[in-house]
């Protein structure tokens, strides 16, 4: 049998396979370059970027919970200037699409980020984190109300011709509504889910474990919720979807594809096994061979319901 076709195209970004790394779990790529062949990945999504550098939250920032971890890193990042100066030169040497995750405190900041990223030839696409608070609207997250999401995505749309992927938060009443708003604002794709807000308590000290009190839950614990949301959104919205949430094996990744995802992002699992994303690609290929499936695309949305 011929080698199966793993290629996918998401929002106009051609990828050699559907396995990407999730923002915030893979640094700027270089951190992991000695553990895996970055050129075996579908795409690299870099750590969330803002206009100015951001220091992040006080410690403790992480805590392990059953089957997962909570983080409240606070979007610490080097800022766009340092990204261009110090991170792009390395990424330029890697023959894999780079998708830059970014965020802002105001709509204008989002637009300015998009404008600046638009000018970087090494950037194949933008992933908008809309889970952060809008400082001009009393700190309500951009991604928690459809109107606000529409408006910020629209502002970004008008600032770039590069593909826009919007990363959706699961901490909403109706994620399908949010997806519709993004589609209307002409996003090119959706990635879901971001972390679920959670908390951990130290009974002995009668205190929250994280300095930030709450944090984002990730890891295998959130996979069933993520699968459900990908399934719901994929049925409702005509945009390519990138599935995220507790993916640590090729089986997990393929389940997301059955649910309707055209590609996936591996997150927390990178921390446990730095070479895991490449292994998932390898195991995915083997699955296709063993099951005589000629192209991985055939599995997208192929979930059989009665």
């Amino acid at each position: 049998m011929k080698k199966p076709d793993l290629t996918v195209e998401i929002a106009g970004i051609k990828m050699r396979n559907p396995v990407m790394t999730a923002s915030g779990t893979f640094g700027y790529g270089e951190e992991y370059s000695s553990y895996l062949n970055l050129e075996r990945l579908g795409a690299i999504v870099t750590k969330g970027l803002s206009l100015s550098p951001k220091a992040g939250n006080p410690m403790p920032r992480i805590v392990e919970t059953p089957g997962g971890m909570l983080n409240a890193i606070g979007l610490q990042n080097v800022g766009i200037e340092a990204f261009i100066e110090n991170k792009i030169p390395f990424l330029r040497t890697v023959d894999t699409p780079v998708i830059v995750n970014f965020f802002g405190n105001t709509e204008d900041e989002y637009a300015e980020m998009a404008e600046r990223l638009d000018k970087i030839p090494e950037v194949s696409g933008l992933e908008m984190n809309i889970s952060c608070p809008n400082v001009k609207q009393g700190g309500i997250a951009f991604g928690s109300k459809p109107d606000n999401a529409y408006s910020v995505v629209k502002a970004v749309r008008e600032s770039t011709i590069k593909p826009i992927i919007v990363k959706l938060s699961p901490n909403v009443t109706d994620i399908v509504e949010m997806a519709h708003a993004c589609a209307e604002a002409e996003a090119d794709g959706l990635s879901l889910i971001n972390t679920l807000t959670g908390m951990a308590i130290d009974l002995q000290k009668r205190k929250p474990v994280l300095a930030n009190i709450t944090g984002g839950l990730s890891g295998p614990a959130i996979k069933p919720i993520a699968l459900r949301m990908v399934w719901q959104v994929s049925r409702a919205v005509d945009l390519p979807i990138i599935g995220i949430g507790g993916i640590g094996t090729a089986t997990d990744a393929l389940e997301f594809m059955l649910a309707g995802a055209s590609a996936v992002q591996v997150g927390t699992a990178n921390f446990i096994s730095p070479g895991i994303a490449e292994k998932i690609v390898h195991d995915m290929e083997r699955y296709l061979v063993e099951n005589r499936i000629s192209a991985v695309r055939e599995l997208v949305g192929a979930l059989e319901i009665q």
Partner: protein
Amino acid sequence: MKKDEMMQFKSMVIFNDQISPGYCKIRLTAPREIVQSRPGQFVMVRVYDGIDPLLRRPFGIYDLGVFEPEYPNMPKQHYLEILYKIVGRGTGILQSLHHNDYLDILGPLGNGFTMGNEDDEKILVGGGFGLAPLYFLAKRLVSVSNVKVFIGGRKKEDILCVTEFERLGIDTYVATDDGTLGSMGLVTEVLEKYLSDGGKRRTIFACGPGPMLKSTAAIAELHGISCQVSLESNMACGVGACLGCVTKGSSHTEEKPDYRCVCKDGPVFDSRQILWG
């Protein structure tokens, strides 16, 4: 160590023994390249294949060596050793492992100690399993420098490795909070007394609980002695990607924060690089 020398490998338990109530030493097989590890570097250990516990646990390298096979003509096996205190689920599972059990290791990671001038007297200050990287360091230092070690703990049971240091021919000073071993009080008080003669050129290396490090750093500053500290932290990735193990650097302010990754920028820092909160 260059980045390309970091490894992820399956490792077999050779032995796993309690060395004091609540503390254990485990010897693990390792690839030959492990010999390039430097004192102060650490490994991330995955104790279980499933998802609870999910993350790896960081441990400083205590010792390296070559395991002599029991039968002739068998290949020699490199190994590494770590010390650990049984505190939670991860270390609880670690304790339950036996000879021939396997675990998964990532490392060596981080920056090790800088050895410094050979003529300086080397002062090691540690507590609990913080002694682990100091023992590895002492083994390297003792052939070229004069080394003294200061060990502190709450009680007798928390004082590890005294015999091992003495076997290297190193003078050992012990202090416990309750006086059950060595002098009663803090080890940093013993250190301060020792340093009061002034005179000699010295370098301090410290690893242990936060307050011990803070106090050691202050003493070093007072005496104008250079001091390297090895910090501990919870970690998720160990390679500088998650930013979950940061510590405040010396120039840190609310307005202009200066966070350093313990895993990647450390775990060994010059004590003056750290903001001691």
